[in-house]
């Protein structure tokens, strides 16, 4: 129990941050028209690709083969998530441009 309380006290900054972020995330998309749900989901999908930073750090500090191989795969997969996610979202949003009546 003491351990848990100590943990909370030590990491209180992060706990504040996380709590506020959760509210911010909810606020940000509460009033979004349903037509934009798909691009928004796709855009959010690209943003969680930020996990690639972890993969880069691993790869950059890897000494043994295990870490090198898994780190390399992780970098590739993370990049797929980021690049693919942003490109697909961009393509979707291209469709939303208002078109002049011809």
């Amino acid at each position, binding site marked *: 129990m003491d351990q848990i309380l100590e*943990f909370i006290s030590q990491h209180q900054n992060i706990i504040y941050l996380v709590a506020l972020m959760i509210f911010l995330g909810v606020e940000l998309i*509460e009033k979004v028209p349903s037509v934009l749900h*798909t691009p928004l989901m796709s855009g959010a*999908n690209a943003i969680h*690709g930020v996990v690639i930073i972890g993969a880069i750090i691993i*790869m950059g500090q890897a000494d043994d083969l295990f870490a090198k191989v898994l780190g390399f795969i992780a970098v590739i997969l993370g990049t797929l998530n980021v690049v693919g996610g942003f490109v*697909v979202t961009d393509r979707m949003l291209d469709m939303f441009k208002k078109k002049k009546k011809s």
Partner: protein
Amino acid sequence: MIQQYILDIIYIAGALSFVFGIKLLGKPESAKKGNFIAAVGMGLSVFGTIFLFKGEGDVHLKNLEWIFGGLIVGSVIGTMMAKRVQMTQMPQMVSFFNGMGGACAALISLVEYHHATTPQVVATYNVITDGVPQVIQVVSDIHPMEIGKALVIYLGLIIGSISFAGSMLAYLKLDEKIKDKVLPLQQVINIGLMAVILGIAACSIFGWISIPYSLYVLLTLSLLYGVLFVMPIGGADMPVVISLLNSFTGVAAALGGFLYDNKVMLFGGILVGSAGTLLTVLMCKAMNRSLLNVLIGNFGGGASKGEARAITGTIKEITKADAASLMKYSKKVVIVPGYGLAVAQAQHICHELEQQLEANDVEVKYAIHPVAGRMPGHMNVLLAESNVSYDKLVEMDEINAEFKTTDVVLVVGANDVVNPAAKNDPASPIYGMPILNVEEATTVIVMKRSMKAGYAGIENELFYNNKTRMLFGDAKKSITELVSELKNA
């Protein structure tokens, strides 16, 4: 030191770019800019990490050739996949990329665990004893992991693996490579498996019982859970599941942020985790169902709940020539597109039909149900792709007021979203879902391949309505013929 400050500022900019990006993505006019801003923030954070990050002992990252190699391989493959995918296959593409992020998070946990539990060589000496050269390595002691770190590593692995396996299965299901399957006692198995996973994780994190290779056991079980979690969920509910898995990956990314005390990972991850969860709930709301109901309800699995009311009546067919002239002499036609239209790739020809009708002074609008297509907004994307003007796409609440003054409603490949059972049959599984009140129009023409039921697997009373005329056949072929009838008439 100055480099560390610059990196900190880059991370702040990156985190803010995500917030602004998501904010701007919420409005049609600014959405493209929002996506771009988030992408720039991401690029900055990635390159900032590569060149400025310093780990323990104040050393820069090494293996740069491997990092750039991975980035290039991933970028090329990712861009190609994203550019080539058909608009109708958009949902499975998002699911695929989401799975990649989940796998990345799981791999990070695996490596960090390996790192923390394997003795590291901290120094190497070459010494000569009795004339024989020897290499002596000094190895660090292994300390038991701190609880906080263990928690983050284990949870990152579990959530990342579930997200990966679930997303890949959702991808395969939407691509129709795998069918829905419900095991007997599916929910009992799922809950049991989850309990086992959490139990093993808790024992290992708090060090109650040491389980050999517990992380690899958890990896296997979590992958299995991801599969079992998505397996029974019906095709029509897949977007909800993808959105949920999307927020899972967000949480996994945030856990990585804890692990490296990296605020931009934490920020991006939590933001997607919470926004994704709300988006999931909003999607469920559009179908007037709860998330729990989607996850355990087997909506699309074919299991019938209660006796649906038997429908009596006769089906009245209409020829293409009659349909064409009926529409030509109408004042107002509303087209209700459904997933069937997307499957038949009929969106382009549908736009041509609209132009032909307008040439004959017929007002044409599209009625967009919130869950038309495979994802909210999916239908808009498909129609916009074939140059249908944005103003012609009318959302459900608005168009429902207009059906009374509509002469002809053309239902193309939609079924459940126009099923009156949602309003008047409490025994129906879709009871309570808001629908398009097409039966208020003077005539309803329903284009369908056959009398097969929709995703929900239920009969549609609308087809037997006196106002309804059925036009059987492939949507693309039928509309093409309608267009040529209109041209000739």
